[in-house]
Each structure stands twice: as structure tokens, then as C-alpha cells.
């Protein structure tokens, strides 16, 4: 049954027949060159494939663009609100009412004490007489006030806190407590509640935008993952053939990763156009509004780095989505 052929394992002693297979070795530099060439070729074929199905590609890109533009617009809006509110906070003043029977020496003493506090940037003293004059001029009750026996208004210090901004509200609270402890102080008025509310609202919005951004990024990942999954299914035959002639996993993966990367990048480019469009659209109205309030406020745009960041994020999300899909589905396609 076995015939005359010996089954011995003297494999190594056999003289191999000379053949043209010795040139299996390919120079490293050629390998590197063709690796780069394959990247380039894959990029171009991927682009060509995407353009050959323009409607499908456009739909996917627009879905990705909207999902990326929404959180970007909201993030930008929030950034502007924060800039605006920190401007308000810096104009916050603490009004310190001086006890009525405080003499001029006591007032000088209080001014010194106020200025000694570390968080105080500047103080302005308004004597009770000055306050009365101001009140006469502004209120319109000027003549009625002449019937008063003595000046009912207290002397006042306007205190400008050194550090301002929503984040330092807690420190402002400490400052108020410190001023309240001074001997000659009668009462303190600080209009901080609305600032606290604004800061809290900004904080809540920030969290909402973040949550929505995460949800939409997951959505983009799923959209790209599904697109790649369909692409893998439709190229099943090709994958099997290239695997049979010795393609590595990386070689098989490459076109799909490029598809994901390009979809994400194109989505981000369209998203940045939507972002800039809405920015210029709203920007003009904001400028008019700010002018009406005599404010120097200017709507801050995303900036060059912001746009680049958005593109990078889009490309990265696209690549990640493609990678996840490829990892899930490519292993399952083996030649059988």
C-alpha cells in the first residue's frame, strides 16, 4: 500500500531541486515603498468608491455632520455665555454701609482695614453728604428732602473684589463675611444671587451639552460602524480571495479603515461649515444687540484651532467606528 517510497524523515539530507523560488526575498526598502504605495492607492480607491455612490456617501456624511455640528454649536454658545457672565461678575461690587455714629477717624480706620483685606482690589468712599447730593440729583425728590432735619443716608464704601468670575463666587462669599466682621460696618449689600444662578445654569448646561455630545458621538460611531459593516459584507468575495493569496489582516483592514476615516473627516468638514455659517448668521444680530446695551461684547468664533480640532475629532471618530466594525466582522470572513 505504501509502495517503494521510504517514509523516513531524512528531510534535511535531501538535495532540493534548484528552482526560481530563491527570489522570494524582497528588499526591505521595496517593501516599505510598496507599503506606502498601497496606502496611497487605498486612499484613492476608497475616494473613488465613495464618489461612485454619491447619494449614499452624501447621506452618511450629512448625518455625521449634523451629529458633530449640534454639540459644537452648543459648546460654542456656552463658551460665549461664560465669557459674557465673567464680564458681569467683574463689575460686581460690594456695598458696605458704615454705622451712623462713626466719626471721621473711624471711617479712615475702616478704609485701612478694608484695603488690608487680600481680596479687595479698590475701595471708593461716598460720604453721607455726597450720597444725599447724588440722591437729590437722581431721584427728583430734591425739594422734599429739604424738610428733613438731618441726613438719613449713611456713608458708604464701594468695594471692588480683586478676583471675579463665576468660579470665584465662593471666595466672594468669604470676603463678604470678612467685611461683615469689621467693627464700623453696619450692613453689606451684595447682589450676587443672580450671578450664582447664572453660574449654576451655565454649569448645568455644560453638563447637558457634554452628555448630548457623548450621545451624538456614539451615534456617529454607530453610523460609521454600520456603513463599514455593509461595505465588508459587499466585499466578502474579495476579502476571501486576498486572504487566500497571502494578505495580512492589516492589508485587508486598510480600505475599510480609510473609508471610516474619510467619512468622519468629510462629516467634520461639513459640520465646520454649518458651525461657521450659523456663527456668522447669529453673529451680526448679537453685535447689534450688544451695541444696544452699550457692551463691547463680541461673539467668539471657533477659531482656526477649533476648526482643526473638529476635523481631527471627526477623523478619529470615523477611524474608531471603522476599527470597531472591522474587528467585529472581518475575523468572521475566512476562506472555507
Amino acid at each position, binding site marked *: 500500500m505504501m509502495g517503494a517510497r521510504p517514509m523516513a524523515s531524512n528531510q534535511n539530507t535531501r538535495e532540493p531541486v*534548484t528552482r526560481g523560488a530563491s527570489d522570494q526575498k524582497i528588499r526591505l526598502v*521595496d517593501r516599505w515603498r510598496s507599503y506606502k504605495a498601497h496606502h496611497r492607492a487605498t486612499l484613492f480607491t476608497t475616494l473613488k468608491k465613495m464618489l461612485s455612490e454619491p447619494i449614499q456617501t452624501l447621506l452618511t456624511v450629512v448625518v455625521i455632520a449634523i451629529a458633530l455640528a449640534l454639540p459644537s454649536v452648543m459648546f460654542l454658545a456656552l463658551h460665549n455665555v461664560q465669557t459674557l457672565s465673567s464680564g458681569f461678575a467683574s463689575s460686581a461690587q460690594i456695598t458696605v454701609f458704615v454705622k451712623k455714629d462713626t466719626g471721621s477717624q473711624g471711617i479712615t480706620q475702616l478704609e485701612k482695614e478694608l484695603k488690608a483685606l487680600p481680596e479687595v482690589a479698590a475701595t471708593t468712599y461716598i460720604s453721607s453728604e455726597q450720597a444725599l447730593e447724588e440722591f437729590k440729583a437722581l431721584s427728583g425728590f430734591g425739594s422734599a428732602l429739604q424738610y428733613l432735619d438731618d441726613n438719613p443716608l449713611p456713608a458708604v464704601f464701594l468695594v471692588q473684589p480683586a478676583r471675579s468670575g463665576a468660579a470665584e463666587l465662593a471666595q466672594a462669599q468669604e470676603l463678604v463675611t470678612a467685611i461683615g466682621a469689621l467693627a464700623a460696618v453696619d450692613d453689606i449689600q451684595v447682589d450676587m444671587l443672580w450671578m450664582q444662578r447664572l453660574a449654576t445654569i451655565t454649569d448645568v448646561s455644560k453638563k447637558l451639552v457634554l452628555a448630548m455630545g457623548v450621545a451624538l458621538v456614539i451615534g456617529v460611531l454607530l453610523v460609521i460602524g454600520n456603513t463599514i459593516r455593509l461595505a465588508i459584507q459587499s466585499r466578502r468575495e474579495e476579502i476571501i480571495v486576498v486572504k487566500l493569496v497571502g494578505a495580512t489582516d492589516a492589508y485587508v483592514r486598510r480600505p475599510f479603515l480609510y473609508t471610516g476615516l474619510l467619512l468622519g473627516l468629510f462629516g467634520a468638514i461639513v459640520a465646520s461649515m454649518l458651525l461657521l455659517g450659523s456663527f456668522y448668521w447669529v453673529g451680526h444680530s448679537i453685535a447689534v444687540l450688544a451695541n444696544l446695551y452699550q457692551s463691547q461684547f463680541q461673539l467668539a468664533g471657533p477659531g482656526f484651532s477649533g476648526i482643526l480640532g473638529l476635523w481631527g475629532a471627526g477623523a478619529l471618530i470615523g477611524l474608531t467606528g471603522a476599527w470597531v466594525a472591522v474587528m467585529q466582522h472581518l475575523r468572521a470572513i475566512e476562506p472555507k
Partner: protein
Amino acid sequence: MIRFDNISKRYPSGLEALKRVSFELEAGEMAFLTGPSGAGKSTLLKLLMLMERPSSGTLLINGKNLNRLSRSLIPSYRRQIGVVFQNHQLLSDRTVFENVALPLHIAGYPPSETGRRVRAALDGVGLLEKETHNPVTLSGGEQQRVGIARAVVHKPKILLADEPTGNLDPVLSAEIMALFRRFQSVGVTVLIATHDINLINSLDHRIMHLEDGILTDDGGASNGQ
């Protein structure tokens, strides 16, 4: 070059496709693998292509144990063998030239070298003038020859063929066989699975016979005569 040592293959379904198969194929030898369909011919070739792994036994290729080859090394192993498939496995979205160039492209040959080798391989199968055609527009025999050109373009040491003449008439089949003998004559080890008894009986080559997963005829004696 190829050595099967007590190889058995049992599929998860319980089917035992190969039962303790042992044989050895020398470098530069050409052999036919025959047997009725379902006898295990395809399974044997799949083991050689590493599409399947043996359940037991050792498979040595050029002295190297294939069982120990990890999954990540399969691509580089497949680049050293050439395979001709019954259903051609050509890609219809590219030209004949690109199909034949695929193994070189994957292995990272420089473009000039690729062009030279592809044209040489196409010339060898007599299809040089069809290099810009789409494989779909070619006849069955021509498609099979493109498949052969792709299998040998990287000058493999081992050439495997699964029913390469399955759908061809006797004249075309004889042409294809003549091609295989030419590769053998330059030192390639050739293993062809076929049930075309008439064809192989007319050729003087080693014939191995598989029956229900058992190698009933090693064919070594006939070769030695």
C-alpha cells in the same frame, strides 16, 4: 517537500474527513489526488492551505511543522504556495493584469518587478494579449489559465490545484495539464486534486487515491517504476 504523518481531520459536526493519512511528496514531484467526491480531497488541500487545521497528526512542509504555525504567520506561509481553484476565485472588479498581480502586490513587490513578472506569467499561459480584459469576459478555460498565472506569478515552491479541469472539455483540460507539467519541470512540487480519471490515466504521474477519508493508494510505487 510535503509530508503527512498520521493526519486525521474531524469536523465539529462529527464527520471524519481524513483518517490517519500518511504520505510524502518530494520536491519537484507532481502527483494527482483522486477519489469520489466527499472522499476528503478538498479537506486535504485545505489543510495544505491552512484553511483548516488537522485534528491529529503532523503536517510538515519543507521540514517545518505547520501545526505550530501561528495565525499571524499564515499570510507569509500562503505567499509561498500557489493555489488554483476550481471556481477560479478571480475578482471581477479589476483587470486580468490586476488579478494576476494581486499576490505580488500583497507581498510588496516593486511596480517594475510586478509588471515584468505578471507579463511573464500571462505569457506562460498564453494570455498576454488579454491583460487589460475583465476576467468575466473570458471563456472558462481562459479564466482558469488566469487563475494559474496568478498561482505561479510569485514562483511558489508548491502548486496546489483543486479540480482545475472541473468545468473544461478534454482538449482544454489537456492544455491545462501540460501547463502544470511545465511548472513541475522547473522544480515546482505540484499536487492536483481531480476526479477526471480519463485525463490522469493518460499521464505518467503518481496517483494517490482517497476513499472515505482513507488513503487507499499512496501511488508511490507507480512513480518509482
